[in-house]
């Protein structure tokens, strides 16, 4: 069985490109050209060089000794938090800005929730001298003020999305509307493995560097390429897609995604899409969606603004449906506890998103001989206020 996208842009029954006709020329251009561009010699050269010299890759695969002792199982952390701009998001924005340049685009738009993808986009736009407009829910603009300032300092225009609940979903709607209104000079840098084909596949390919490195780094440290399991958090799912990518066909490797349960899956304040959603179409692809019986999209909630999204990438919907990957959830409280634990055991303050993956350790039956790789998708700087409010330091 293949877990990759097919020619029509589907992962099993999920994916596709449910786009209004106004977006057709741009999406068709991407569908026709993305593979050719990203496989070209020039693109590969530039992409690899920037990841190495600008982003700081490879990111370390760190053996967490005290965590391993505590959980009586081998735990490695893939340190995406050490990338330039503080998360894995930059892997994708570097790829897409090079693609946008190759396609002759001069104006970049993006959506952002917590601001990590917005900052990563504003960063590469500064680097490549491109005009940058970032849509951010009006509520998130208030909640994530430091990232808004960073984006502005980097030269981006931040536009507050005033529609709906004024969070990530609404920012995405506004970015799509911008693209419809600017059909010729603009490239939309989607931040996750969501949206119409070819975005889910394209973003997964740019993020696949994570699992590519895990393989040789494990080989270097343990003399084996395959871990027992890989654990990553899932909102849209770009970090998990990158961490799973090169292990998809190695069925012996257990793949664990962790969704944000917010205040609990029995409450209305949650973002656990695979646990609670049903198949539907949101933001141009068919996947699991949190929705009412009437097909209206439900506003999600999570303490982590980066996982606060009512959909999930179609690749994950398919991995879930085929049972190739297993999806757990973690509540806000479990996540805060896991973040503090990592901080005090290893001296690493994780992002709230990444702490979801850490919280899964308590939910799995780990054996002493197991090799667990946890993708630490981002650092906790942006979440200090939440941590300080909660822990009272």
């Amino acid at each position, binding site marked *: 069985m293949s877990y990759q996208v097919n020619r*029509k842009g589907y992962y099993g029954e999920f994916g*596709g*490109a*449910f*786009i*209004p*006709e*106004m977006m*057709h*020329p741009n999406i068709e251009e991407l569908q026709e050209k993305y593979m050719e561009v990203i496989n070209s010699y020039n693109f590969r050269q530039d992409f690899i060089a920037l990841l190495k010299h600008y982003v700081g890759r490879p990111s370390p695969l760190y053996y967490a000794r005290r965590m391993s002792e505590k959980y009586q199982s081998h735990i490695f952390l893939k340190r995406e938090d050490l990338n330039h701009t503080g998360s894995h998001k930059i892997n994708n924005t570097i790829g897409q800005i090079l693609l946008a340049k190759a396609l002759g685009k001069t104006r970049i738009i993006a959506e952002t929730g917590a601001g990590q993808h917005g900052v990563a986009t504003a960063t590469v736009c500064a680097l490549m001298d491109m005009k940058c407009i970032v849509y951010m829910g009006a509520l998130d603009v208030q909640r994530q003020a430091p990232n808004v300032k960073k984006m502005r300092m980097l030269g981006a225009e931040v536009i507050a999305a005033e*529609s*709906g609940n004024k969070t990530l*979903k609404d920012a995405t*709607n506004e970015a*799509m*509307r911008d693209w*419809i*209104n600017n*059909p*010729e000079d603009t490239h939309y840098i989607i931040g996750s493995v969501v949206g119409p084909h070819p975005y889910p596949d394209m973003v997964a390919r740019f993020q696949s560097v994570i699992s590519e490195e895990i393989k040789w780094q494990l080989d270097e440290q343990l003399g084996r390429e395959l871990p027992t399991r890989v654990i990553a958090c899932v909102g849209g799912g770009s970090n998990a897609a990158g961490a799973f990518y090169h292990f998809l066909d190695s069925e012996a490797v257990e793949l664990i995604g962790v969704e944000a349960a917010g205040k609990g899956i029995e409450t209305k304040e949650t973002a656990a899409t695979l646990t609670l959603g*049903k*198949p*539907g*179409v*949101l*933001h*141009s692809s068919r996947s699991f*969606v949190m*929705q009412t*019986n*009437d*097909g*209206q*999209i439900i506003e999600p909630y999570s303490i982590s603004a980066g996982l606060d999204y009512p959909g999930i990438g179609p690749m994950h919907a398919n991995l879930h449906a085929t049972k190739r990957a297993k999806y757990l959830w973690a509540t806000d409280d479990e996540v805060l506890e896991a973040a503090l634990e990592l901080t005090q055991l290893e001296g690493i303050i994780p992002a709230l998103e990444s702490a979801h993956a850490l919280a899964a350790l308590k939910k799995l039956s780990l054996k002493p001989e197991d090799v667990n790789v946890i993708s630490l998708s981002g650092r906790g700087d942006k979440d200090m206020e939440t941590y300080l409010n909660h822990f009272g330091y």
Partner: protein
Amino acid sequence: MKNRINQLFHDKKENILSVYFTAGYPQLDDTVTIIEQLVANGVDLIEIGMPFSDPVADGPVIQQSSLVALKNGMCIARLFEQLKGIREKVNIPLILMGYLNPVLQYGVEAFCQKCAEVGIDGLILPDLPLEEYHDSYREIFARHNLHNILLITPQTSEKRLHEIDEASHGFIYMVSSSSTTGVKSSVADFHLDYFERINQLKLQNPRLIGFGISNKETFDNACQYAQGAIIGSAFVKALGDNGSLDEKISKFVNQLVKGV
């Protein structure tokens, strides 16, 4: 069985006026009254909007009306309840317009069945692209005598224009300039070269121009290049004004047609 859309374009060749409104706005139960008033004022075709929480192809006016309609309690099941018996009152073509997800949740087959029962003639689902329509929907729509109305834009390639023409059986919805609804609204935004280019293609389907048609000037201008035009945001905005529905609707249509 003849479809009312084809009958309309057979009987009337120019200045066809199509009006969109969001079902459930301004009040939940205004649907039938709005349809009757539009017909009484001489409108040729009506597009009934099924509100959706995330209407990405729409500008602020229709977004806002959708939000209010959903808060009022509008949903597809309720809309079908309201439309029961509408064919005893009006005979012009009625089209349902909305996004795919609510239709999927209702069930495509059940949805089309209900459309046929209440007397709907066509569907406009902006996020159902041509390819998906061909693969999974065409046969179901056809079985219930529902025309799928497809959109074209200034950026649509000539090859695709012909594919869309081939797949269309009612009319083609010609988007005046690439935009979301209700954003651009002056004749200056029209791409006249695009209008003329499409005219010269001799497509087999008639066309209505929509997006950016807001007053007599833009309506008349659009009608020079197609069989008629579609008004959406401007009408929805007028429905939000103070006054009775009867007054608002007759005033709006009269201003549009007569300029007074």
